[in-house]
C-alpha cells in the first residue's frame, strides 16, 4: 500500500464531510465522495487500506439483490462490514463505500467488505482490492453502449480477476462458469424445479454456438436464454458439476440447498418467487457458506431478509393491485425477464402494462433503442393484458416494435411522459396495473406511481 500523506488526509476529510452532509438530506449511495477524493488526491484509491477480507459480487443481473441479502444476514449476525447497498457499483461507488468505513485518520474500521462491482469497473477495482472471493451472478448481454457483448465482458473479467480469488460461479451459465479457468472455484446450480417448463422462445441466446467448435450447442434443459443444461456435441463442453444445488422448493416458502461434498441438505426461507430470485438467494447463501458461516446460522438470519422493493414491488388497493417490476434501462435480458413475469401472471384479472424504463429522459439526447428489438415484447401478447402503454421521447419506436411483435394496435397507447401516460389510464378498467421501471428515470416513474396510487385508492 502506498504511503498516505497529507494530500490523502485532505481528500479523505473532504469526501467524508460531503458524504455526511448528503446523508443529512436523506440521500443514500453516491459516487461523489470518491470523485471529490480523487480530484484532490489522484492516487487516493491506491492508498486506501484494504479490509482484511474483501468479497465482490459481479455479473449482469442480480448483483444488488445478492449484495443486499448477504449484507442483511451479516448485519443480523452483528458483523460490521463495508457494503454498497444502493446499486452504486461503479468504481467510484466502491471507493465511496470504503471511504465511509475509514476513520478520520484513514484507518479501515471494518475487517470485511462486501461490494457489488459493475463488470466494467472490475478492471479498476479488482487490481487494488484483490478480492478474496468473487461471486458472479450470471453473464448476459447488457447495455450495448457500455458492455458490448458477453465475449467482451468475459475477456475483461478474465483480465481483472486476481489469480488468488476464489470464484463462485453459476454452473447453469456456461458463459460465466468458464471465467478464469485456473482459479480455485466452486459452482452452484438450480435443479429443474417441479413443474418447471423450459422457455425456448426467448430471442436472446448469448451461447447458441460452442465458443471452441462453433457448432450449435444442444440444450437438454433451457431455463431461459442460455441458462440451463447444455452440451457441445462436438467437443463435449458441458455444465460443471455443482457443489451446491438448489433442489426443490417446499410449499413456496422454503428453498433446499444440497451440499454435494457432504451430501447434506439445508432449508432456507424463500425470499422471492421468481427463478431469478431463487438464483440470487442461492448465490447469497453459497457465498455466506464459503465465507465460513454454518447453514443453521444462515437459515436463522435469512428469515428477516427483505429484497429491495424497487426490483419487484406490489401494492394492493382493495381488489386491485399495482406492481412495479424493474426492467432496467437498455438491458434487454432484464426487460425480457420482466415481460416474462408479466406474461405469466396468474389471477391478475384485466392487466394494464406501462413501460416506463427509458434510459435517457432528455429531449436532446437521442436514445438508442436497438435493445428493444432483442426483447420479447411478444410475452405481453396475452388475452388478459388489455393495454400496453409506453412513455418516452422515443415512444413511436416502442410502438413500432410492439406492432412487429403482433401486439394488437388497439391495445397500445403512448405518451411523451410517464405523468401523461399515467393520466391516460382509467384504473376502473383494470384489476392490475404493472409498471416496468428502469433505474435512471426515477422522478418520472414516481410521478406515474403517485398518480396511479391516488386513482387506485379513490376507486376502492
Amino acid at each position: 500500500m502506498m504511503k498516505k500523506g497529507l494530500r490523502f488526509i485532505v481528500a479523505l476529510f473532504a469526501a467524508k464531510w460531503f458524504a455526511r452532509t448528503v446523508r443529512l438530506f436523506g440521500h443514500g449511495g453516491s459516487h461523489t465522495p470518491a470523485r471529490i477524493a480523487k480530484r484532490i488526491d489522484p492516487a487516493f484509491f491506491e492508498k486506501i487500506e484494504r479490509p482484511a477480507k474483501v468479497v465482490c459480487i459481479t455479473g449482469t443481473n442480480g448483483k444488488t439483490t445478492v449484495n443486499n441479502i448477504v449484507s442483511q444476514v451479516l448485519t443480523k449476525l452483528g458483523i460490521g462490514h463495508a457494503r454498497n447497498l444502493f446499486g452504486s457499483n461503479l468504481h467510484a461507488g466502491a471507493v465511496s463505500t470504503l471511504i465511509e468505513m475509514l476513520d478520520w485518520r484513514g484507518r479501515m474500521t471494518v475487517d470485511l467488505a462486501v461490494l457489488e462491482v459493475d463488470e466494467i469497473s472490475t478492471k479498476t477495482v479488482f487490481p487494488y482490492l484483490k478480492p478474496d472471493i468473487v461471486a458472479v451472478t450470471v453473464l448476459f448481454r447488457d447495455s450495448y453502449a457500455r458492455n458490448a457483448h458477453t465475449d467482451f465482458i468475459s475477456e475483461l473479467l478474465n483480465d481483472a480477476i486476481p489469480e488468488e480469488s476464489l470464484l463462485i460461479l453459476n454452473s447453469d451459465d456456461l458463459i460465466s462458469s468458464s471465467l478464469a479457468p485456473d482459479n480455485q472455484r466452486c459452482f452452484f446450480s438450480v435443479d429443474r424445479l417441479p413443474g418447471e417448463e423450459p422457455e425456448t422462445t426467448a430471442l436472446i441466446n448469448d451461447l447458441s454456438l460452442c465458443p471452441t467448435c462453433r457448432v450449435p450447442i444442444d440444450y437438454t434443459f433451457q431455463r431461459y436464454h442460455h441458462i440451463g443444461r447444455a452440451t457441445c456435441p462436438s467437443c463435449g463442453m458441458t455444465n460443471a458439476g455443482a457443489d451446491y444445488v438448489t433442489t426443490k422448493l417446499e410449499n413456496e416458502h422454503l428453498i433446499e440447498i444440497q451440499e454435494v461434498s457432504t451430501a447434506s441438505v439445508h432449508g432456507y426461507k424463500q425470499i422471492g418467487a421468481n427463478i431469478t430470485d431463487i438464483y440470487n438467494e442461492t448465490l447469497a447463501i453459497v457465498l455466506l457458506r464459503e465465507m465460513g458461516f454454518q447453514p443453521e446460522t444462515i437459515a436463522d438470519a435469512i428469515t428477516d431478509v427483505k429484497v429491495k422493493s424497487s426490483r419487484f414491488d406490489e401494492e394492493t388497493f382493495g381488489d386491485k393491485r399495482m406492481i412495479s417490476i424493474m426492467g432496467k434501462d437498455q438491458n434487454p435480458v432484464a426487460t425480457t425477464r420482466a415481460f416474462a413475469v408479466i406474461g405469466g401472471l396468474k389471477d391478475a384479472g384485466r392487466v394494464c402494462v406501462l413501460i416506463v424504463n427509458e434510459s435517457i429522459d432528455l429531449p436532446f439526447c437521442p436514445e438508442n433503442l436497438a435493445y428493444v428489438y432483442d426483447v420479447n415484447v411478444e410475452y405481453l401478447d396475452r388475452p388478459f393484458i388489455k393495454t400496453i402503454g409506453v412513455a418516452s421521447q422515443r415512444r413511436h419506436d416502442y410502438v413500432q416494435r410492439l406492432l412487429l411483435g403482433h401486439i394488437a394496435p388497439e391495445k397500445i397507447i403512448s405518451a411523451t411522459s410517464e405523468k401523461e401516460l399515467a393520466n391516460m389510464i382509467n384504473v376502473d378498467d383494470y384489476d392490475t396495473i404493472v409498471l416496468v421501471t428502469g433505474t435512471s428515470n426515477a422522478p418520472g416513474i414516481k410521478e406515474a406511481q403517485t398518480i396511479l396510487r391516488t386513482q387506485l385508492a379513490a376507486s376502492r
Partner: protein
Amino acid sequence: MKTIEYLFYDAGTLFGDYGHYYYFDQLFASERIIRTGLNDTPAFINEPVDLVYLGAMNERHQIMAAERLLPFRDRLISCIENGMHFLATCTAMDILGQSIDYEGKTQAMLGLFDFTVKFQRWPRINQFVYGEWNGIELTGHKSQFTKTTFGPGMDDRYFFKTKRGMGANPTDTREGIHYKHVYATQCMGPFFVINPGLMKHILRELDLPDDLPAEAAAFEAHANRLVEFKHPRASQAMEVS
C-alpha cells in the same frame, strides 16, 4: 419466388439484430428463406440467392465468418457483380474489408472493399447518425470499439455521408458501403427496420411489393427520430472508457 439467405444467423445476433430476422421473416413471408449457420456452407455458393443478410457478431465470430467465407470469395464477388443484394450491419460490415487490427494483431478479412478496421477496446464510441442517400433520409446508432479507414477504392463505394455523427471514423463522414446492390453500414441493428424508406427502395429493386410490416408506425417513428437527430441541440451520448 425470391430466395433470401440469413448468412451465419446463429452468430449475427448482436445489437438488436434479432429485429432484422423477425422483420425479414414478416417482410419476406411469401419468399423462400434459408437460414445458414456458421458451420454450414452458404447457400449462395450453390444456387441463386436474391438477398443475403449478414448481422452483427462478436470479434471471435468475425474471424470465424471470414475464414468460412474466404474459400468462396470469388463466388461472392461474382454474385455481387451479377446483382445479388447483400445487406450487412454493424460489425458484419467489417468482414467485407481488407483487414481488422485487433489491438496489434492483424486479421485478414474478405478484401472485397478497400478499407481497414482498427479495433481498440477503449473508449467505446456511442453515436447517433443522421445522413441522406439517394433522397432518403437515414438514421442509425453506433456503439463500437472500431475506427475504419477508407482507401481510394471507397471513393465511389461508400453508402452515404453523415450530417450528424461519425462516419467511418471521427474525421471521416463517409459511412458504410453502397456498391451495386450491396448495402452495408456500421450502424447497428435494426438499421433496415428503422429506415423504412430505404427498405422500400430495396424491395423495389428486388421487384417485390414494397409494403412494410407496421409501415405507418415505422414512418411515424422515423419522422420523429429525424426531428430529434436533426435538432441542433441534440447531443451525442457518452463514450465509455
